[in-house]
């Protein structure tokens, strides 16, 4: 599967307007269910781009790999901040591995990544 929405956490961005995951999905796959929670039309259509994951202000969306590709494996959450994106990979044992990537603005001098 592609993504999973945590209905406890989703508050449709606290707005009557278009929630951001619904706005940003490049396949226009996200919609709001009658219970006011975000959902995906069909995970088969998902490209795994994580646009919805990163833009969600309440961290309610996580990405999962299709089981046909990887058994169990890791899940991914992320958050797009102004100048960086933070990522949280949840591993098999439940531990987290966190990353940060620059996203906008002048890049730091990085001689050796």
């Amino acid at each position: 599967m592609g993504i999973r929405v945590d209905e406890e956490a989703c508050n449709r961005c606290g707005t009557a307007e278009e929630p951001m995951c619904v706005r940003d999905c490049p396949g226009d796959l996200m919609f709001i269910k009658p219970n006011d929670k975000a959902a995906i039309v069909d995970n088969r259509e998902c490209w795994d781009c994580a646009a919805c994951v990163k833009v969600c202000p309440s961290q309610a969306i996580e990405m999962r790999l299709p089981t046909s590709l990887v058994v169990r494996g890791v899940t991914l959450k992320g958050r797009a901040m102004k100048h960086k994106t933070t990522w949280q990979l949840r591993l098999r044992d439940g531990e987290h591995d966190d990353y940060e990537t620059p996203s906008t603005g002048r890049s730091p001098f990085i001689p050796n990544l």
Partner: protein
Amino acid sequence: MGETVEHRCDLLIVGGGAAGCVAAVEARERDPDLDVLVMEKAHVYRSGCLAAGISAINAYLHRGESPQSFLRYVIRDTHGIVRDDLTLSLAAELNEQVRRVESWGLPIPRDERGQPLRRGRASIKIFGERLKPILGKRAEASGAAILNRVNATGLLLDESGRVVGVCGVGTRDGRFHVIRAGAVLLCTGGAAGIYRPSNPGVAAHRMWYSPFNTGAGLSMGIRAGAEMTSFEYRFIPLRIKDAVAPTGEIAQWLGAPQINALGEPYLDKHYAELGGRSMPTQDRLYATLLEKRAGRGPCYLDLRGVNPRRLRGTIAAYLSMAPSSAMIMRDEAYYAEHGGAMAPVEIAGGEPHVVGGHGLSGYWIDERRRTSLEGLWAAGDVAGGMPKKYASGAWAEAVLAVRDAIEQIRDGQDRGDPEPEHIERERQRALRPLAGEGSIPARELEERLQKVMDEYAGGIGQQYGYSGGELALARLHLERLHDELPHLSASTPFELMQCHDVLDRAEVARVLVEHMDHRKETRWHCYQERLDHPERDDGRWMVFVNSARQPDGTIQMIERPVQRTKLDVQLPELADGAVIRRRGSTRPSR
């Protein structure tokens, strides 16, 4: 659903992806009075190829490089079939456009001397996770009107055959849009989903190219009789298997060698005559297939000896472009941390695509980026004749197209209106699946199309090879499939969009098969692999294979010679068993 909305503008940009967003900004900066409209299938913040981000700019002139040296590199990679005029004019714009997008907020790491970090021959490192929102917001701020969630379905022509607008359908509300424009620039991208994908079932969309790029712009042009080029050059990515992640991040950035199952660096050891590790892109894929046939497969990227800290950098890079690959990579590292071993990173080819940014296929355009239809320009993946454009090349091409289109708009040439009957025909066609007369859901016909193309037109299942006999069957089955298209059925605007995705792919597939059948040689292994004509024949086939659909529906094939700028370029040899003919003489390859 169904009501008609009308718009008018000076410049209509169809597709708000990499090319379209930069085109909008360029147009508004050049002429702040210009009425610019961007028509976008999804939303410009994350639509198109750059949705997940990218971690490199792959068309950039390093210090010491020039448009001429860039052209030499492209000619070698495409075995000679490339448009020199398109390549030189585009290359001259590359660095300027990269600097421009950097000034909009794209982080590009630079060394002490201010040079971007080199990642390959024409490639630099970037932090591109936010690239698409940066472009989309800039396009919005430019003052161009953005019409999100309208899927283009047809070109509107006046009596003289000039393109005077585009029509489309709202993907959320099913409304029919008619947009009249002084000039139309197509930036709709290439086509994915024509072939059966590497991953079936629930993972079907884990593919290299955007599955939402379905060839709409190509299909509209085909129906209007525009000249198309080189569809037979099908781009097939060599990727990390399953993750479908680019190999460059590991091969170039981590310096991991490409090895076969025996642990040999096979590119150098067995295919030195092709150029070893610097062989052309398609031969890299072909060599990997040959290793399997020789009993030395599968092939891998060798991560033994890679510093784990650098692996972290690779995972971070994947997060910024192909997050699912980062997940798979991190899961493998987990095993290594717990006393197991990382599975070797297996590499394999994906499914073929019709795409002009990596490959050669798309609209036949002139140096000003005009198509063969008056009033219509093309830029980016939808335009053909010059591969290795990638994102920065799409920006450069968009800018070139806009400059010329604006000149023509200023000239204020008389343009007619589309005929009302023409608009009505397009409306009927666009909305037909909603009429309740059909019974076939889009996915069924999509799977039928992908099955035919995979089995009879050199898909993954056939290891990309095909012969005339199979193409004849592909043609037959595609004709039958076309008879079924009027029976497509949709009950929502979203399903209607899916119906159009299939209609567009089917249109592209028919032309693709004719191109594949016309070129009776093998010039680009795997991309264009004729099992019944396994030789490259420079005496006969140093030509572009083009096509134009005629009013009676037949596809007319056209050959256009390669116009070579005076450059001293040695074409590379073909692999095993192939023979190269040069001006009548034959000699076997080593």
